């Protein structure tokens, strides 16, 4: 993954953040991402993000679960080993309902959660650059990516004018990597290109 330079502004309130995000897009700076300590409603619209398709994935996994349960049980009871249980029919559809339902839910829940992790690129032990130490506490952070055409000073001033309490310039790895937060310093010494300036 690429190491990039970012202009990072932190805000104290979401009511300052959302108008600032809208302005970043109007002015045309390259908005890398916005980090908030809780879901700010209206922020995704302000950033121009589309709605997630996670629900559709959930439906597909669920349908897969239904099919697995129904086909599996039918095959076992009818084809693989037709067992006489008290003279009951070999294909007792009503008796299949509970397990079919449970497997539908199980497949959908597990599948969607794994898709959620994959889309967000999160996993145990994954490490990503933290732009502001309090971005998961009470600060709302905008990161603007520096391109060859970006005037850093101008962007800094722009963020300050729009209510940022603090603006910094950071160089960071934009993707994720494996590592331990406890060994951050050591990690950065051996990989100087990933250290934060």
């Amino acid at each position, binding site marked *: 993954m690429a190491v990039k330079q970012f202009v990072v502004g932190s805000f104290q309130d979401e009511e300052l953040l959302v108008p600032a995000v809208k302005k970043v897009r109007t002015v045309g700076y390259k908005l890398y991402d916005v*980090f908030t300590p809780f879901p700010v409603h209206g922020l995704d619209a302000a950033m121009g993000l589309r709605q997630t398709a996670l629900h559709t994935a959930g439906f597909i996994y669920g349908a897969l679960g239904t099919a697995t349960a129904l086909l599996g049980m039918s095959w076992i009871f009818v084809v693989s080993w037709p067992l006489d249980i008290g003279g009951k029919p070999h294909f007792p559809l009503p008796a299949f309902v509970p397990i079919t339902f449970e497997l539908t839910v199980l497949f959908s829940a*597990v599948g969607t959660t794994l898709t959620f992790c994959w889309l967000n690129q999160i996993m145990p*032990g*994954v490490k*990503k650059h*933290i732009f502001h130490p309090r971005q998961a506490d009470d600060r709302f952070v905008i990161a603007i990516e520096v391109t060859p055409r970006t005037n850093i000073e101008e962007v800094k001033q722009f963020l300050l004018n729009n209510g940022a309490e603090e603006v910094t310039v950071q160089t960071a790895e934009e993707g994720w990597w494996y590592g331990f937060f406890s060994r*951050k310093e050591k990690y950065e010494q051996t990989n100087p290109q990933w250290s934060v300036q």
Partner: protein
Amino acid sequence: MLHYESTVREPLINGSKDYHQVTEDIISPIEKKPGKLWWIALGFSLTMLLFGVWSVFWETYWGIGVWGENRTVGWAWDITNFVWWVGIGHAGTLISAILLLFRQGWRTGVNRAAEAMTIFAVLCAGQFPVWHMGRVWLAFFILPYPNSRGPLWVNFNSPLLWDVFAVSTYLTVSILFWYSGLIPDVATLRDRAKKKFAKFFYGLCSFGWRGTAKEWQRLEALALLLAGLSTPLVLSVHSVVSMDFATSVIPGWHETIFPPYFVAGAIFSGFAMVQTLLIITRRILHLEEYVTLGHIEAMNKIIMLTGGIVAMAYITELFIAWYSNVVYEQGAFWWRILGPYWWAYIILITCNVAAPQLFWFKKLRRNIPFTFVMSIVVNIGMWFERFVIIVLSLYHDFMPSAWVYYSPRWPELGFYIGTFGLFFTCYLLFAKYFPVIAVWEIRSVLKRSGESYKQQMVAIEQKTTEAFIQEVQHEHAVVAH
């Protein structure tokens, strides 16, 4: 963005807070070293757990005969305890899923602890059917997989197998729901961590979460989807548990009202357990401002409602036994009330039907010591409900020569005590090392439902409608220019 909620509604967060204060209040107890009380409680729980392990070892070595079961009463304390623990596990999902779908803001203060309780209760519940198998090393026979025994498949017609699927699905989905909501708070812990181990541990557990707009959007979609899946799931789990009984031909078990009756009872006992745990937790961790009297009252109302449904089920059961004209059915209920176990039925009615009626008084609903006592009374009552259903339907069976009186022996008692040990050990570890309140959810309702923010609304609410409309129109006009 106008975060507006009428002051008629009670605030969900008391006191004057900002986002950082919320984080400090909930997270800082985790960063401190555990206190003396915590160590004592943990030691006590571990002792109970060890006693349970010893009891289970004894039972596995000698066979389940050491429990006190006999040919007439083949299901006793173990299945009673299984149903009791699974029932307790229902409140967490009800709070996190059903109240999410109903957009009940008060769930934010209690959902994390309740979901954790759900998971630990289901873990405890799962022990009982597994060890009840006797030859526990053959427990994998309940899984349907191509095998060299025929292949000998499981019986998909059996509610006991449905139970395997229902309970294991429930445990899995509860863990996913709980943990996906926990990730952002673990990220907060990670960013605040000072010590080496804490940085490593919370770094590992936070999955690299940063709280980008897209991550939040997906998390909310996931929560809604899991809530939608969990809602029918939670209703199905105890329905399936009830079918273990209802599909049999034992008088006292063979009843069509069992599924809703069991589900209501489960929520009834589950909320009682949430009360027991949260009343202690909020006191020790000083979270009275987040788990307010309003939260406790709301849960007491649910206890009252579900208690009413349970009472209705008891009456229906008795009425149908009489109305059906089936002598065996009538006999089962006759022996339930007037047989040698009359005292169990009296406890059941006192705890589950009579006692919750006191919650009609608002003063008692908002009284914390009273609620605490009631939460324990309800769980005693619900344990006896399962005991009455299971043992009291079996001990006087079709042949008077086989009638017995059942009492447990120490390994069965020890097993039950052991699951308490497991439950409290898990809860203590969770409450010490993870936030018991969903911090990010509190942040997201703070401006709408926080006490100090609501007070700003008093001025607006006191205005006349005309004055308010004029003001808003004026503001819009200014913005338009």
